[in-house]
């Protein structure tokens, strides 16, 4: 399955985007997000960008005030996921131009559309920025 969820959470622990690739109830999500964010926030810059939590491995990366967290299972290449996060950020950068937390908040659906292109069934399916963004650009033009 690979990727189990992708979260964007700010420094205060507030969720800015959440996409789960397996079903969790609202309560389970709430608890999981709280636990993970607490764990990751407590870590220093030098420490690994990977944290094991329950049966997940969390790969996280911080950009200014925003944390990107990806929950994966044991078979994933952690460093590659770390770079996948950066690819996502680069893609959003290309679309929004120097993306920030508020961009994602105001255009939540677009951030989700990008993720929909990049990850399906918990697998990375598309890594070409042009391919990821073209449907979104077409939709922007049409409306």
């Amino acid at each position, binding site marked *: 399955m690979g990727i189990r969820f992708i979260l964007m959470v700010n420094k205060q622990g507030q969720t800015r985007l959440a996409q789960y690739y397996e079903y969790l109830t609202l309560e389970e999500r709430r608890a999981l997000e709280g636990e993970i964010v607490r764990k990751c926030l407590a870590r220093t810059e030098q420490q690994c960008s*990977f944290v094991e939590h329950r049966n997940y491995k969390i790969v996280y990366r911080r950009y200014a005030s925003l944390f990107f967290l990806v929950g994966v299972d044991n078979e994933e290449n952690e460093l590659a996921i*770390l770079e996948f996060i950066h*690819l996502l950020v680069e893609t959003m950068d290309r679309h929004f131009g120097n993306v920030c937390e508020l961009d994602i908040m105001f255009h939540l659906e677009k951030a989700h559309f990008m993720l929909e292109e990049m990850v399906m069934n918990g697998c990375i399916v598309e890594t070409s920025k042009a391919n990821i963004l073209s*449907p979104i650009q077409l939709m922007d033009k049409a409306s």
Partner: protein
Amino acid sequence: MSSQGGFGHSKEFLDLVKSIGETRSKAEEDRIVLREIDTLKSRLSSPNTPKYKLKEYLIRLIYVEMLGHDASFGYIHAVKMTHDESLLLKRTGYLAVTLFLNEDHDLIILIVNTIQKDLRSDNYLVVCAALNAVCRLINEETIPAVLPQVVELLGHQKEAVRKKAVMALHRFYQRAPGSVSHLISNFRKRLCDNDPGVMAATLCPLFDLITIDVNSFKDLVVSFVNILKQVAERRLPKSYDYHQMPAPFIQIKLMKILSLLGNGNKKSSEQMYTILGDTMRKCDSASNIGNAVLYECICCISSIHPNPKLLESAADTISKFLKSDNHNLKYLGIDALGRVIRISPDIAEQHQLAVIDCLEDPDDTLKRKTFDLLYKMTKSSNVEVVVDRMIDNMISINDRHYKTEIASRCVELAEQFAPSNQWFIQTMNKVFEHAGDLVNTKVAHNLMRLIAEGFGEDDDTVDSQLRSSAVESYLRIIGEPKLPSTFLQVICWVLGEYGTADGKYSASYITGKLCDAAEAHSTDDTVKAYAVTSLMKIYSFEMAAGRKVDMLPECQSLVEELLASHSTDLQQRAYELQAIIGLDARAVENIMPMDANCEDIEIDKKLSFLDAYAQDSLEKGAQPYIPEDERSGLSNISNFRTQDHESSTHALRFEAYELPKPSVPPKVPSVVSSSAELVPVPEPYYVAEVHQPAKSSPTVSSSGSSELKLRLDGVQKKWGRPFSSTTPSTSSSDTFESNNGTTRHESVSSTKSKVHDVSYDSRKQQPEVSSEKQKLAASLFGGASKSDRKLSHSGQKVLKTNNHGAHKDNLAKAASSSDIIKPRSQPPPDLLDLGEPTVTTSAPFVDPFKQLEDMSSSDRSATVANPPPNATIAHLTKQPSKGPNIEEFLEKDALVRQVGVTPSGTG
């Protein structure tokens, strides 16, 4: 583009997002969301809301759920929006639906129709949107509704559609493999798609398929190797490049597949060697993504049939990882080391100091990974050090999930490699004390059995020493608060069996301790059961030894309390205890023989010891016993039995009993047979019944023939096993587990390492200084490199104590001999840059073994100017050349972080 983005966002939406963005506490956020829920409820219920407004409301609903509140009141509006003509609204509708609903939600049925329609759309973006939804919402039942269309779309002219159709099939395969088993060939076809995106997507389902069935896809090795080659040669469009690497994510996926296909298959593996070597060479080890690909190469190399050359370059990369200052790379290095170590065990030695640094690192992720590595490289020579470390670590962690894992690993390693039983028991005690409720109860029973059976040798004194030391340690521990239930059970059992065995402790002392334990854990019925049975054993042993038994007042009150217990099990035990105390010494000795827990209990099924008694009764005119199978012809009562005589007597019968015929010939009462018909009870019942057969038989037979009913007399005895079968044994204590109303209170012992120091551990590691580190390295890596795993129990029994002593000597020798060499390579990390001089000074201290090793890996050492005397020094000399690379890398990383995002404040 400004983050304010006008894009038709209403002021309301902008205000909502801003206020959410500005909240500083969860409570404040909750207030905002609750207010928003009210607003949305009223807005959504009003008719004639313009569509563009509805889209915004949906996104606000997504916010509500994302922030942890229920938005189910608006789900239906999301479903409705999927019907919309406008692509943007439709896709937003689909997005909201996939975020809100799981695949079994009732509303899905309303969407399937829309999906079917959209899959036929002329607009490929609509088809894509529908396929996205298919991947999230279609469950096993609805697969047939869309399957034909999805298969058709595999041939769509737009690559984006083909890609998503492949993923939809992948999803179907995940949900119900059977539904697409006839379509596997489509995946093979799509692997050759002209579009690299479709090809890359196809790797996902193929990976899953190959994981399950390698053999059917062996023929694809060539294709995968070819694709990887083309990717590495930059034949893919530039847009797939990431940080100057050609399509690294595709490379990684391909190597994951190759490692599956090459695992244990020499022929397939040989086809991969060249490309793997090339890929490794081309990787840029200064970038994260380059290292990610390198790491994947190592994973692949260690999984396929080994190739010495590739393993060597893997080893080089691993040492680069381990020497890096970047913790992520160290982490990968430790992980990779754990993979390669299975193939070339001696590779660990050169990295021992790096490994120990990681073990002591405050970064718990790194530490945890290093413990994984230690677990993988444990052998009989280093098991004591590894398990000690693991236990120390286990005590310090709070995470239940991880604690359970590490506790079970300690148990596993101890069972496999224990150098002595003494050590095994001590180790188990520690594990139980600190994580007793997290380990399998089977482990507790193993421990009890081990203490009871001892070494299985003739030498009894060793066994009794072992038991005495167990008793002693348990007497010390038993008073501790918050001991895990399982551990208390073990303690009670051992104290009951062996508490008074060596005569060191008086019965009243032990029984007092047991009572205290039962009292302190009054909510734990299992512990109380163990305690009271142990009391019974101790009193029996006392009586059998001819001493007078004075029950302590607290024991008396405990027994009285249990006599009235709600747990029938406890009650039973208390009654038994009372009964035994009333018997004479000779009887007690037979009931509870000393130290007989390992003896098999022979069950005399024929009850031959009653022969004389039966004979007696017969002579007095009682009816003889007729075996069941011979009875059918004799009695009419058994008539119905003949119809289904196949069914055994003890099986449950589900059909109604026939009404008894009133014309039963009273001349054939056959007491025993009729009562056996009515109440099929196991043999012990008769033992209790036999007391007054003559008196009870007439009434039984008469009532039995007139109306069939349950006989309740004597039933109480059914629960009580006849006393003769309560001989102490481990197996009988197993049954205690299942008693009703057992409440286990979770007493995960909070980190009380002090307790554990004082109680029974003198060997605990002192806080490390650097020479200490060397010693640790020597004991972890230095010992004999035999990695043969022994079978758990047979292994333990074979080991003798004198053997153990010799073994320790070896260990000490190994440690001291490596101590002599090690000080040369001792300089702490900041001296690493000295390089050359260190090499020359250490030359005289050449270890012959190390030399041998160097000869075997001569080409590696040849690259260094001065042939290094040992591997550790090799890494010292290489170190300086690494310097600039790391700096460059760190700079890049910092740069990347800077260019990424600007702080939110600017918005």
